[in-house]
């Protein structure tokens, strides 16, 4: 969301030459493209609507696949299915710890990559890129093989290690993009204006990187919360929300799982919408106030 903010500003600067002409050129696709997009969005939303709708279904048997009436019982009694709730709690805990760890480590690397010269730069970049190019099964199997040979028992600890690992590269990429868009002169100005290295970092670098760091943390949390493949290789007997669903898929998934997924969805969308609205209103304020 941070890069967008910058882009939006850039857009605000750019005048709009030839606007009437541009409007004309799109006459051909004027209806075709929007219509296509509406259909595409409907398609994208189908399983989401389905999942949310079935969180209100009156569950008759073990599985929750045929509609038998509206009820709020699943929402009011989420934790009647103790396994679902426990798995959800585990996922939250793992997500929180992995997010903090990956965000801290990744932000440090991103700052170093953007601001400092050091030898073997390309090797470091490769090391950060590789985990993103590695299929999850390979990463999961590799970690599992290592834990196996080192005699480390699988559990919450091994899951957190795995999640921090695959979030790390995404944090580096996200924060790096933000850091690279910052004018180095801002930090120099801070030093010039009697800011000690710590003051410059805490009052200039960190606040300016914050949108990027927040975006990276959100991304990490959603990656961790929804990860199944790597988790399944390294979870042992511990159940996260996705491994619970995978295991229950054969015998039927309780509606409470839909409730939790729906609630998480609504919260995540709310966070995104609010941050977008804040960005939008700030953008409008900036451009309208410009004399």
């Amino acid at each position, binding site marked *: 969301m941070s890069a967008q903010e910058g882009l939006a500003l850039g857009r605000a600067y750019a005048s709009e030459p030839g606007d009437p002409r541009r409007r004309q050129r799109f006459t051909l696709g004027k209806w075709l493209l929007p219509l296509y997009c509406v259909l595409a969005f409907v398609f994208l939303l189908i399983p989401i609507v389905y999942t949310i709708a079935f969180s209100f279904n009156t569950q008759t048997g073990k599985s929750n696949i045929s509609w038998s009436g509206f009820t709020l019982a699943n929402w009011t009694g989420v934790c009647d299915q103790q396994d679902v709730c426990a798995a959800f709690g585990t996922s939250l805990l793992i997500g929180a710890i992995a997010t903090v760890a990956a965000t801290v480590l990744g932000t440090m690397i991103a700052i170093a990559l953007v601001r400092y010269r050091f030898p073997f730069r390309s090797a470091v970049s490769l090391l950060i890129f590789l985990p993103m190019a590695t299929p999850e099964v390979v990463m999961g199997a590799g970690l599992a093989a290592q834990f196996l040979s080192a005699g480390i028992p699988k559990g919450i600890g091994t899951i957190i290690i795995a999640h921090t690992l695959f979030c790390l590269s995404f944090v580096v990429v996200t924060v790096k993009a933000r850091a690279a868009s910052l004018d180095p*002169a801002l930090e*120099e100005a801070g030093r*010039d*204006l009697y800011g000690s290295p710590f003051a410059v970092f805490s009052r*200039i670098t960190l*606040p300016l990187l914050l949108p990027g760091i927040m975006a990276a943390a959100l991304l990490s949390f959603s990656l961790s919360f929804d990860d199944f493949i790597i988790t399944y290789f390294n979870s042992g007997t511990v159940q996260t929300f996705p491994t619970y669903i995978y295991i229950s898929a054969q015998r039927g998934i309780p509606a409470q799982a839909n409730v939790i997924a729906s609630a998480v969805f609504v919260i995540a969308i709310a966070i995104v919408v609010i941050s977008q609205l804040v960005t939008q209103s700030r953008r409008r304020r900036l451009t309208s*106030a410009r004399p």
Partner: protein
Amino acid sequence: MTPQNTFADSGADLELAGISKRFPGFTAIEHLDLTIPAGSFFALLGPSGCGKTTTLRLVAGLEEPTTGQILIGGRDLTNTKPFQRPVNTVFQSYALFPHMTVLDNVAFGLRRRKMADPVGKAHEALRLVELDHLAGRKPLQLSGGQQQRVALARAVVNRPALLLLDEPLGALDLKLRRQMQLELKTIQNEVGLTFVHVTHDQEEAMTMADTVAVMNRGRIEQMGAPEDLYELPKTTFVANFLGQSNLFTGEITASTPTSISIGVSGRAIVVPKDRAEIHTGVVTIGVRPEKLNLLTEEPEARTGVNVIGPGRVIDVSFSGVSTQYVVAVPAVGDIIVFAQNMDFGPVVTVGAEVWMSWSVDHGFGLADSPELVTAEAGV
């Protein structure tokens, strides 16, 4: 190390002694010695890549010199950090902190130094640049000229012994630029600080500064008051970078106790000895285009006047207040003449045969020759 919590009473001398700065692969500054007296408005002028911005960054402490010392007010500050130096910079891009209000930007330095009443002092500085009414805005809500003034206030409010300006007017349009030049000058007079201004705009340097140093390839070519630099350039680079020049190179053909002359297409061109850097061998003599008179008939030879011609006018460009003529003279080359439009429009047209004359006292003799300079540059 440095007294952090006091304002500088007045501007301080800046002394650079034997400064060199090498980056991997190239040398930005080669053995630079420079003294800038307290209270002066000093301009470092040069093309991009000449080392002027690097010099400024060395003084600010944003780069460390490879060799040499930096002394401010007599104190050696070579090994101190930027935040320990009584120096502030107005950055080229202004570098206003986008997440802070204008007021917080201006108060930033005061707060870091734990000065008393930072808010009051910041308002005062904003009043100086006439922007106090926008103190609550964010920098991005201001126009370019306003941002520039905030950047100036943010630096000046700290009362640094030395204020560094890194092409601060580069991003402004011409009209705003002229206005800001005057304002900067006024502020410098009011606060009495030492200003070091880096620019590639020769007009800006000459209008604002009381001393201009022309820099080229990591070295200072010439330094002095703007009018001295313009009227008596000492090197080909200065003669061409600071305004335009017509240059004539030749072996000395005659020498008197007060003047030397060279032969150019059969005529003697004379320059006073006290306006020439070298008095033997091959010499380059120059004259500014506006010092030339354009004549449609061959003038009589007179002492004290140099004549060149005949030549043919090959280009006339009218620019309102003056007209520029380009005259091709056989065996000499193209000569540029500026003439005030005392009458309506140009006085001669393309194809006309003309002569040019100028007072001997307006010529200057350079220390180098254009050919030697190009040879040295390895072109």
